[in-house]
């Protein structure tokens, strides 16, 4: 049985339009014009028990809107959302106790109090018994390495510490379904890795289902085997990470280390996305041409080192979105 179901989910927004300047302001004050904007259009997918799925799309693609419909914060304009057999926007207590939503750009922690106070509130709200609560806090704090900051006021914490504490607070009630919206936003590499590791071990240990959006492809690569792509509110792709690369990136990345500097433009004929810096060169070459190009390169230049690799996921995704609908 699917844990999360999105069936032709759509969300329209009404947005008031306003021109700049005083005249525009006055007109806006007297008579308003509205515009319909489709944030999500007929998006369908299903997630199985224990799956970790990356949810990708450029800014404004409709990721957050979709997550909010699945967590019951937004009513879908049309279509059906179902999570753990519940209709999210009915906000049944049984549903709310089994899910969580983490937003990297929002804070639920009480700003002027120590983290522990927010945790205490959450324990009460989710009716977690005292002993169990202590056990979970100790376990999570250790996994996240934040044992010593729990008694500090939230405003004194660094961004990374705060995000870890947010995660702790959001997972305290052992949710079965995790919706993570940019959980690593703005964090340094160490903190990103820590958050990632925590999510992975939590999901593995409890068999939780995770739907995760992130701008950092490293998050997706590390956590998800399956990705869902949306663009301008529409579903572009849903499948394995490998399939995505095969389908959308029929390229290989060729890196050269030259013995002598070559003139600029010398490599334009060999492939796309030429990145040229002194003696090191980077090219994207289609798979069909790969053998020929490598041979030609070795023949034409004095090459010290040559590697052929999968291109970075960022670049693949970027190309897909730049190309628009597929």
């Amino acid at each position: 049985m699917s844990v999360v179901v999105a069936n032709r989910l759509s969300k329209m927004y009404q947005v008031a339009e306003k021109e700049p300047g005083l005249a525009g302001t006055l007109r806006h004050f007297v008579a308003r014009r509205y515009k319909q904007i489709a944030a999500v259009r007929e998006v369908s997918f299903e997630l199985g028990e224990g799956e970790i799925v990356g949810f990708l799309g450029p800014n404004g693609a409709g990721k957050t809107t979709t997550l909010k419909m699945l967590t019951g914060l937004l009513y879908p304009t049309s279509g059906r959302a179902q999570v753990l057999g519940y209709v999210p926007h009915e906000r049944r207590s049984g549903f709310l106790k089994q899910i969580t939503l983490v937003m990297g750009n929002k804070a639920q922690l009480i700003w002027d109090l120590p983290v522990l106070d927010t945790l205490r509130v959450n324990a009460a709200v989710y009716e977690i018994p005292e002993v169990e609560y202590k056990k979970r806090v100790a376990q999570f704090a250790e996994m996240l390495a934040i044992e010593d900051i729990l008694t500090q006021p939230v405003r004194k914490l660094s961004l990374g510490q705060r995000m870890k504490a947010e995660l702790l607070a959001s997972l305290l009630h052992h949710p079965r379904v995790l919706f993570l919206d940019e959980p690593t936003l703005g964090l340094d590499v160490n903190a990103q890795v820590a958050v990632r590791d925590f999510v992975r071990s939590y999901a593995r240990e409890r068999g939780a289902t995770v739907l995760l959006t992130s701008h950092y492809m490293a998050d997706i690569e590390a956590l998800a085997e399956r990705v869902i792509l949306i663009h301008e509110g529409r579903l572009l792709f849903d499948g394995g990470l490998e399939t995505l690369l095969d389908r959308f990136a029929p390229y290989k990345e060729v890196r050269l280390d030259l013995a002598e500097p070559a003139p600029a433009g010398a490599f334009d004929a060999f492939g796309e996305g030429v990145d040229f810096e002194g003696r090191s060169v980077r090219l994207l070459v289609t798979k069909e041409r790969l053998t020929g190009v490598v041979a030609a390169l070795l023949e034409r230049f004095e090459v010290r080192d040559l590697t052929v690799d999968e291109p970075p996921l960022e670049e693949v995704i970027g190309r897909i979105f730049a190309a628009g609908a597929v």
Partner: protein
Amino acid sequence: MSALTAKMRTLLSVYYAYMLEYRAEIVFWVLGGLVPFFFMAAWSEAARQGHTAYTPGEYERYFFAVFIARQLAIVWANWTFSDWVRTGKLSFHLLQPLDPAWRILADHAAERGVRLPMLALIGLVFALLFPGALVWPGWAPLLLGLAASTLAFLLSFLVAYSVGLLSFWFEDATEIFELWYVLMLFFSGMLAPLSLYPEAVQRAVYYTPFPHLVYLPASYWSGLEPADPRGFAVLGFWALVFFAVARLLWRAGRRRFSAMGA
């Protein structure tokens, strides 16, 4: 029910700690509420020159009671709720299996815990500055006044919360609550004892909540005029009305809640 009690107990203790962090702000907030004493000064000065219905001492006792009644019923639920909508914090509260109203109620109740000692201190200073002004009202009037004040607080809270819920529709709803506040300022006895108002005005506003919000507890405490127990019924009626309004707005508002970018 006991689950809710347990939740409220934790919320209260955490919000008490939270409000303690803001004690300096609360001091100034309390001091900003000293306005009734300005009117006390004007009325008792008038009384000293022998022109009005009561003695200076009676005015002092009355306006002190007004001050306390006002302080105990102060609410900001509209502000908190609007802020949650604006900053998107509401999302977190919607995700939890607890109606956000309880959180805001706990927040208000806990704040009273920080405010009360300050009020006691002001009472002490007042007693020193105006010797003889404070008279023990007796147990029954004291408790009845407290009951009236609690009811007035609940009603104010429900009105403020309803106004806060309007943020689902209007991006900013702060000024709407000002209307309530202004009507209260003029018709609740904060400027002058209501008995000094023209009869026609007294009659016209009798069934609105305003003449009872402050005047009812203040009458019990100060004994200036006999308190009108029918005020309880009026306050109770309006509290039920606004409870229903808040529930309706909550239901309709959630349906409307569009959290795009918020």
